[in-house]
């Protein structure tokens, strides 16, 4: 595809439920990142992964957050037992190599009610 795409664009979840956010990255990009963007804390990385044909190496998913990469250019961010504090914009990005420019998707705005 032409760029990074994320789905859904908007998600409302009841507190305590699990959610899954999808990212389709740019074909051929090795590194894939998930960031969370909030007004109070800015943009912080949640996890990243590098993949070759055989192996996915995840970053540091913390607690309820985890990322899977079922295909090289697809990633799913899973949030377990959502909390109201998880309400944020979740941005996916990919880069050809580490330290080259990252290309971002439009984000998924998650609202936990």
């Amino acid at each position, binding site marked *: 595809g032409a760029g990074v795409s994320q789905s859904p664009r908007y998600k409302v979840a009841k507190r305590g439920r699990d959610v899954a956010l999808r990212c389709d990255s740019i074909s051929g990009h090795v590194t894939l990142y998930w*960031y969370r963007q909030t007004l109070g804390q800015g*943009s912080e*990385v949640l996890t990243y992964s590098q993949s070759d044909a055989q192996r996915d190496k995840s*970053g540091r998913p913390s607690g309820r957050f985890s990322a899977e990469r079922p295909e090289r250019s697809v990633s799913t961010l899973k949030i377990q037992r959502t909390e109201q504090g998880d309400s944020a914009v979740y941005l996916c990005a990919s880069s050809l190599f580490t330290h080259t420019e*990252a290309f*971002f998707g439009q984000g998924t705005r998650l609202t936990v009610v």
Partner: protein
Amino acid sequence: AQKVTQAQTEISVVEKEDVTLDCVYETRDTTYYLFWYKQPPSGELVFLIRRNSFDEQNEISGRYSWNFQKSTSSFNFTITASQVVDSAVYFCASSIQGAQKLVFGQGTRLTINP
């Protein structure tokens, strides 16, 4: 520790004015990378520029220019003859060798008024 500071939370100028967005970075590493991204209302972060720590040359791209000064740990961004379409949130970010993530500043919301 790695840190990026954008002290200007919001800037508002009239169209055609020049405007400079400040970025100060902190790192103990000698090899690092600096970035600027633009986030328009549509939400996606648009890559503008990447510099590595060994290249202190300033760069100009059309109305955009960047001033990288290691002596003051700054990587400032200037828009010349601003236009309404430049209105967005601008983020400065850094990464260091061996760490596979971008550390972002808090962003500067730039509003260009007609």
